[in-house]
């Protein structure tokens, strides 16, 4: 259901080197590298790019700065870019103003269990789809692919009815069941497994390993980069998911960070600074994951159909 996973899908591009994983590597055209690269031009380019990026990222700066302001100072005239006195206690008060710890715990529960199940069942199924040949396999795989293109909104009503019949609405379980078996995860892992030569698997079979052992001992260790990509993408998509929890979780003690934050907007309209504090905290896990795993946001471009 998490539509964002699919959007992130294509995404798995190494930010520093978008081509890292594509097969064919042709010399890239780089205008700046033409012999007459005067130092002045280079300096100008750096200044220009730095200014551009800073301007484009002002919203983050303003959020961070406002999270340390007094509530009254957020909309002060003229604009206070830097707080007059840093209100570090905003970062203490927020935990008691709203049940932020509960929200974080719910978000973490969902994110971790969905990511874990997704990796486990996804890589397991991908082995079946790529290395075991049997009748009907390809038809089955087409049914996975077909649903990737359908917007989740188009089938959320039947899903909701089903969850209601199962008495699972307003439980975290509903979201885990809906998001842990996404077609995207299987697709991604299968594409990776296809790139592992069949000979390797055959050799293991001749050595007497059964299929489950081959998956556990050979495929899993080899597919660490793909697993890492899938884990990061699923983590980000689930952590940021809004629509799923919004529809399914009605009681406050089950809310995720996203829902908690949004309800905070309505309840405490005058706590603009604290609202920013909460927003900053909600982003921190994603920021850490992004810094740690940057290189794993690698190139699914070749697999996702972006060919020249």
């Amino acid at each position: 259901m998490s539509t964002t996973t699919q959007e992130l899908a294509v995404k798995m591009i190494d930010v520093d080197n978008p081509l890292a994983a594509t097969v064919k590597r042709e010399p890239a055209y780089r205008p700046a590298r033409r012999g007459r690269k005067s130092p002045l031009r280079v300096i100008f380019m750096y200044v220009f790019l730095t200014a551009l990026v800073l301007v484009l990222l002002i919203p983050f700066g303003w959020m961070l700065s406002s999270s340390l302001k007094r509530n009254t100072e957020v909309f002060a005239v003229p604009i206070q870019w830097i707080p007059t006195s840093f209100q570090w206690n905003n970062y203490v008060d927020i935990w008691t103003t709203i049940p932020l710890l509960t929200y974080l715990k719910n978000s973490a529960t969902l994110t971790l269990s969905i990511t874990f199940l997704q990796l486990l069942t996804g890589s397991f199924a991908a082995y079946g789809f790529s290395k075991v040949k049997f009748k009907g396999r390809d038809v089955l795989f087409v049914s996975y692919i077909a649903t990737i293109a359908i917007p989740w909104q188009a089938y959320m009503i039947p899903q909701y009815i089903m969850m209601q019949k199962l008495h699972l609405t307003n439980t975290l379980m509903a979201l885990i069941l809906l998001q842990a078996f996404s077609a995207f995860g299987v697709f991604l892992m299968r594409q990776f497994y296809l790139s592992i030569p069949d000979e390797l698997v055959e050799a293991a079979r001749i050595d007497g390993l059964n299929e489950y052992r081959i998956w556990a001992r050979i495929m899993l260790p080899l597919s660490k980069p793909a697993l890492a990509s899938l884990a990061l993408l699923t983590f980000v998509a689930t952590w940021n998911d809004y629509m799923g929890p919004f529809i399914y979780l009605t009681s406050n003690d089950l809310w995720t960070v996203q829902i908690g934050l949004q309800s905070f907007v309505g309840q405490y309209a005058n706590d603009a600074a604290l609202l920013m504090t909460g927003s900053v905290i909600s982003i921190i896990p994603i920021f850490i994951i992004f810094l740690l795993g940057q290189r794993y946001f690698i190139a699914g471009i070749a697999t996702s159909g972006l060919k020249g």
Partner: protein
Amino acid sequence: MTASPPTIRHPKITAPQFTTPQLSKERALSARRRARRTALIGWSFILPNFAGFALFTLIPVVACFFIAFTQWDAYNPPVLVGVNNFTRLLGDSNFWISVRNTAYYAFGHIPLTLAIALGLALLLNRALRGIGIFRTALFFPYLTSLVAVAIVFNLLFAPDNGPINQILNSVGIANPPRWTASTEWAMPTVIITSVWRDMGYYMILFLAGLQTIPREYYEAAEVDGANAWQRFRNITLPSLRPTTYFVLILLTISSFKVFDLIQVMTEGGPGRATLVLSQLIYRDGIVQGDYGYASAMSLALFVIVLSFTIVQFKLSERGNK
């Protein structure tokens, strides 16, 4: 597609050329048995995921097509009503307004994001030390949750004393727009916010596309005396065509199903100024429990997305010829 167990390729087990009929019959039997065994193993790998996938994705997708032709609400059992839901749609002003708003959002969000992402990609496609930091920084908004983005932009766009209106005031605009508080400006505000969030992601896609263009093309063009604009027009743009169509399709799908951003920023308001299709599906189907009618609307959304995707696909195929 024939289910031959892999071991059969091993030289030791290769079938001898002359066999008695009796022997080959046994061989065929055991081959079939082996095929069944392989199928069982294959299924055992796929089943844990497929069970969840079939139950919670595949069945709902198929069910939607049936529910759309029933009258079904939270309290009464479903009754087949033919195309009633669809005729009701045609006369529902909420539906038309939400279709119009969704289209408004899409036709603002798609070209703006495309243009800005391409511009940024061209700008950042150079061999400078540390260029990766700039790319990374611009990509990060895309990973930030829509809720946080929507909250921050709502404050930035606050009509009274919000930073953006203060800046507009200071450059001499006496009556800046009231952004999400005005029916006229609410949708542009949402579009600006979404463009800001998405630009870095599509920029990365364009960067990848740019790097597949062979350098020789540009060198040859320079020898022929082509200026920067001519090189862009005659080399970069045509070479980027596959990337552009790909980006277009992704943008189309994501635009037509927009929900989070609008729900958090405006809740569809003021009035119905930013009410979009997926919000209406949510309201009618889940809040009010009008399952049949909401499913009909879901099908409409699906058909819209599908037809745009097909049109773009056809166009891209023609372009490639």
